């Protein structure tokens, strides 16, 4: 009872990375609260295939729902599973990815259980809350911290009286790590029909097509990112050249994506990917709040910008004042010359 739950999302028999990131975070929250970490996964033909992708993150108990038509995901059967399981288990916290699935499922479950849900959290912490309106005090609530109002402010949201406290988190915001401590690792396989009503299977998936990601921006140790200052799609080719010699991945600002310089899946920032590389080279990026939100945790930030007062320069370790046309070829040239 009152444990921390993570809903694990799958594609086929592969557990989504964002779910593993949340298991890692969930384990920390459970340790802090002195409760167990539980996980739930639902799909078709997943028994025996998903357990090893979930348990090592420190899961005390895993509920595997394996049944026909649970993959591809549709809203109603997965909602039934969570709602009925949560009625039995009474979790205090439930986390899921701020993915297409998580943002379809989370609100439906929260509405059914009349519990609050906070979307797109960037931080989750445990803390106390004094409600000034009612004068009541609460211990150990989940602080759901998220950017609001277009990223111009950060709000801390709590759900004082309703359980579970639900939150979604984007992929890449938390970092995954298997758990070194001890955990129970129990696995159960509940009977799907006990949880899902036959009427739930109303949506038919006629066609489901997912392509493997073309890049590993999220996990890259060096990211070279281009902004509107790259000037054109051809300008971006220069970045791909630099990325190739540095064994880096290419990222972009939203202005660059909107201008068509680069594919949308490379966007870094609040509404894109969050990256944590060793080195982040920002080329022709001004550094608006929403972009910085996705790369501020990079160990070393290098800015290449013709404007010495670009906001990104304030958080950069190295600022090269100059045009990208001049500087990027030199970075390539001198890296080639000096490496090995």
């Amino acid at each position: 009872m009152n444990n921390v739950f993570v809903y694990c999302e799958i594609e086929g028999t592969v557990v989504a990375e964002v779910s593993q990131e949340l298991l890692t975070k969930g384990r920390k929250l459970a340790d802090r609260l002195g409760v167990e970490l539980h996980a739930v996964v639902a799909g078709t033909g997943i028994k025996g295939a998903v357990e090893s992708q979930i348990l090592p993150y420190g899961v005390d108990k895993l509920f595997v729902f394996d049944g026909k038509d649970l993959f591809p995901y549709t809203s109603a059967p997965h909602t039934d599973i969570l709602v009925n399981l949560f009625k039995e288990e009474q979790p205090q916290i439930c986390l899921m990815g701020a993915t297409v699935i998580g943002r379809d499922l989370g609100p439906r479950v929260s509405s059914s259980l009349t519990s609050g849900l906070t979307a797109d959290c960037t931080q989750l912490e445990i803390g106390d809350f004094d409600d000034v309106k009612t004068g009541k005090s609460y211990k150990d609530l989940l602080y759901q911290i998220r950017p609001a109002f277009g990223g111009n402010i950060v709000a801390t949201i709590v759900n004082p009286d309703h359980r579970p406290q639900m939150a979604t988190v984007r992929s890449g915001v938390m970092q995954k790590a298997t758990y070194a401590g001890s955990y129970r690792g129990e696995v159960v396989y509940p009977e799907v029909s006990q949880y899902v009503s036959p009427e739930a299977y109303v949506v038919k998936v006629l066609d489901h097509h997912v392509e493997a990601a073309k890049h590993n921006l999220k996990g890259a140790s060096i990211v070279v990112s281009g902004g509107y200052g790259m000037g054109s799609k051809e300008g971006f080719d220069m970045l791909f050249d630099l990325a190739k010699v540095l064994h880096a991945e290419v990222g972009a600002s939203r202005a660059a994506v909107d201008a068509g310089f680069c594919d949308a899946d490379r966007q870094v920032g609040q509404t894109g990917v969050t990256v944590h590389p060793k080195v982040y080279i920002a080329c022709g990026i001004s550094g608006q709040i929403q972009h910085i939100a996705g790369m501020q945790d990079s160990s070393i930030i290098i800015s290449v910008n013709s404007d010495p007062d670009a906001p990104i320069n304030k958080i950069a370790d190295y600022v090269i004042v100059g045009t990208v046309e001049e500087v990027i070829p030199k970075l390539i040239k001198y890296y080639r010359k000096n490496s090995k």
Partner: protein
Amino acid sequence: MTLKIVVLAKQVPDTRHVGKDAMTAEGTVNRAALPAIFNPDDLNALEQALRLKEQNPGSTVSILTMGPPRAGEIIRQGLFRGADDGFLLTDRLFAGADTLATSYALATAIKKIGGVDLVLGGRQAIDGDTAQVGPQVAEKLGMTQVTYAQEILKVEDGKATIRRAIDGGVETVEAPLPLVVTVNGTAAPCRPQNVKLVMKYKYATCPSERPADDPRASLYAERPYLTLTQWSVADVDGDPAQCGFAGSPTRVKSVQNIVFQAKESKTLTASDADVEGLIRELISEKIIG
């Protein structure tokens, strides 16, 4: 088949163009400094609704919005583009609503409208960015939901076929009516306002938008379609305990302005010596390999 379609549309502050004066010195949002607009994704939803209306003669499209009296503007903008009528939910009891209380209010109004086949909303609103209201309205009405729609391909024999964007791909699904669909901002853009409709509906207003002794009172008496429906909590038989702040499980504990830690940075020029110096430093410190 003829369809009764409701489009959920929200009036939002234009957070995409936040200037320096949009934040007060205390770090709160200065809503007055931001223009109020039709939530972008909701325009994409309206376009899908208007297309369905064209494909299915006899269908109707109604705009449903919850907000202060000035949100009547959203209904007018919908009428200018081809919607048939609109409903404004406005009442002090609706104020302070989080997504759950908002969806309760919208769902109650949809029940009151009655016989609705399709509810279309935007995927998300740019002020809250939650994308929660659509699915929560669906749950409250016990309706099937399809989110992240790119295009409603057809509605036939009581079923809709919808193409939707999923993470890293696309999916086509078939779902029975009645149905709630949320539409992405990347779906087809909304048609522009139609001049004839602007002429027709220019003075369409909700009662609460009108001054006490309205000079146009006789016009409204003559043309009933210029009076937009306005509902309070009581009008939709709502439970005040589930509306507004009272009906919201979430509380905002605190709000902070974002301040990034400025670092001590080394400033270099684009000269060969500076660039090569930096590269050597990064290599010798094993920062790059």
